[in-house]
């Protein structure tokens, strides 16, 4: 039963990711990314990380993607211009290079896995994450607050009409 759910979410994720890349109108790409995020949340729940699954939906799909959709609607472009397709022959080189990249990634992380088929030893409860966030990772936590402040100031400055 769990395998069926894994295959469902995995197929949904891969389909949505391919749709992001293939669509001509960028609004459909953004909506496919939202579907990808929901599939990711499903996979997180299968890995017993339920707090992260819900946070993924609230923060990523509910806030960041709304920002993307707003900007796309604001700029209101028609479909992708075709432009000078100078790299037409390079696209055929893309497939074997892509497979080579896949092989490189897999060979790097394959060796780090533990024994297959072991039960997940961890439940990602909010208490465990909070405890770790405020003891071991206190410094990165405070630094990310600075990071968000800088991003906020940067976004406001860039989007102003005149400085």
């Amino acid at each position, binding site marked *: 039963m769990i395998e069926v759910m894994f295959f469902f979410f995995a197929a949904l994720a891969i389909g949505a990711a391919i749709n992001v890349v293939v669509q001509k109108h960028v609004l459909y790409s953004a909506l496919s990314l939202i579907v990808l995020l929901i599939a990711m949340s499903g996979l997180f729940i299968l890995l017993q990380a339920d*707090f992260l699954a819900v946070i993924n939906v609230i923060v990523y799909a*509910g806030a960041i993607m709304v920002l993307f959709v707003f900007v796309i609607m604001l700029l209101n472009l028609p479909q992708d211009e075709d432009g000078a397709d100078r790299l037409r022959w390079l696209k055929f080189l893309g497939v074997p290079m892509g497979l080579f990249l896949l092989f490189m990634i897999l060979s790097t992380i394959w060796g780090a896995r533990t024994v297959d088929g072991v039960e997940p030893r961890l439940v990602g*409860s909010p208490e465990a994450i909070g405890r770790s966030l405020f003891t071991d990772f206190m410094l990165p936590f405070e630094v990310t607050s600075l990071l968000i402040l800088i991003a906020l100031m940067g976004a406001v400055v860039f989007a102003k009409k005149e400085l």
Partner: protein
Amino acid sequence: MILKMVIVFGGLLGAFAYLSLVERKVMAFVQMRPGPNRVGPFGLLQPIADGLKFLFKEQVQPTAANPWLYLAAPLISIIPALLSFSVIPFGPALQVTDLNVGLLVVFAVGSLSVYGIVLGGWASNSKYPLIASMRSSAQMISYELSLTLSVVGVLLLANTLSLVELVRSQEGTWLGFLPKWNVFLQPIGFIIYMIAATAESNRLPFDLAESEQELVSGWHTEYSGMKFGMYMLAEYGNLTASVCIATILFFGGWNGPSFGPDWLVMILPTIWFILKIAVFIFIYVLARATVPRIRYDQLMRFGWKYLLPVALANILITSFLVAIS
């Protein structure tokens, strides 16, 4: 499990339809007129007549509309409204499922309901829906912040995110007569939650996205037939979900004095829950009938400059008090 889901969601859809009748009747009595009373005794068959009208009406679609998004937007609106009911407990053992992070699931599907409005306005490809949907989505994501921050105080007191545990933490009474509800411990949080929930469900005084006087009908101008019916159901669904969460978080959910014979004791918690929800829905409808609409810039200023700092101050004070006790 499937039976539970069918009962809950079928009953909910019927309840949302009758909520429209409640709203019309209460607004009518406030305005000194009788309200719907032709169809059935006291207008009780009016929602059925409305439902049949929505089913049989011709669905007019603008030619320039985006067909896939036009169809998908009401679905995206109503699915979160119904999904949030899958974690709400109506009684001691009456919920579809009890998740470890149940409260966050309600907020997660609430933040997904923004897309129903944004895409509805975009897909209609005309002026009024676009303006309305942009305004409404900006309003919803601004007040979503205050909504989530206002319940952090309650979570600090109860130490859990599961809705069933939150209800159980409010059992019992102080001094024998004052129930242990969170509203007495977190009054500011409750007020912020009510205001933010009104803004989240696009109700008056925050409903300039569907204001009849300015924007014809807001983001559902170009919708007719069952798609419009779905938007209406979604709006009442969001309202009811916010009200249910308010009772669970602040007013003790299904806790209440239990008395009487055995069969009464079994259904009494659900009756208390429904009574509390009914009081809140009455307050919401009363607010719709009496309070004027807020202008857009006043709304954004209120949400960011007043409501958000008050919510943050609430968290600060609550965490300080919890830490020193």
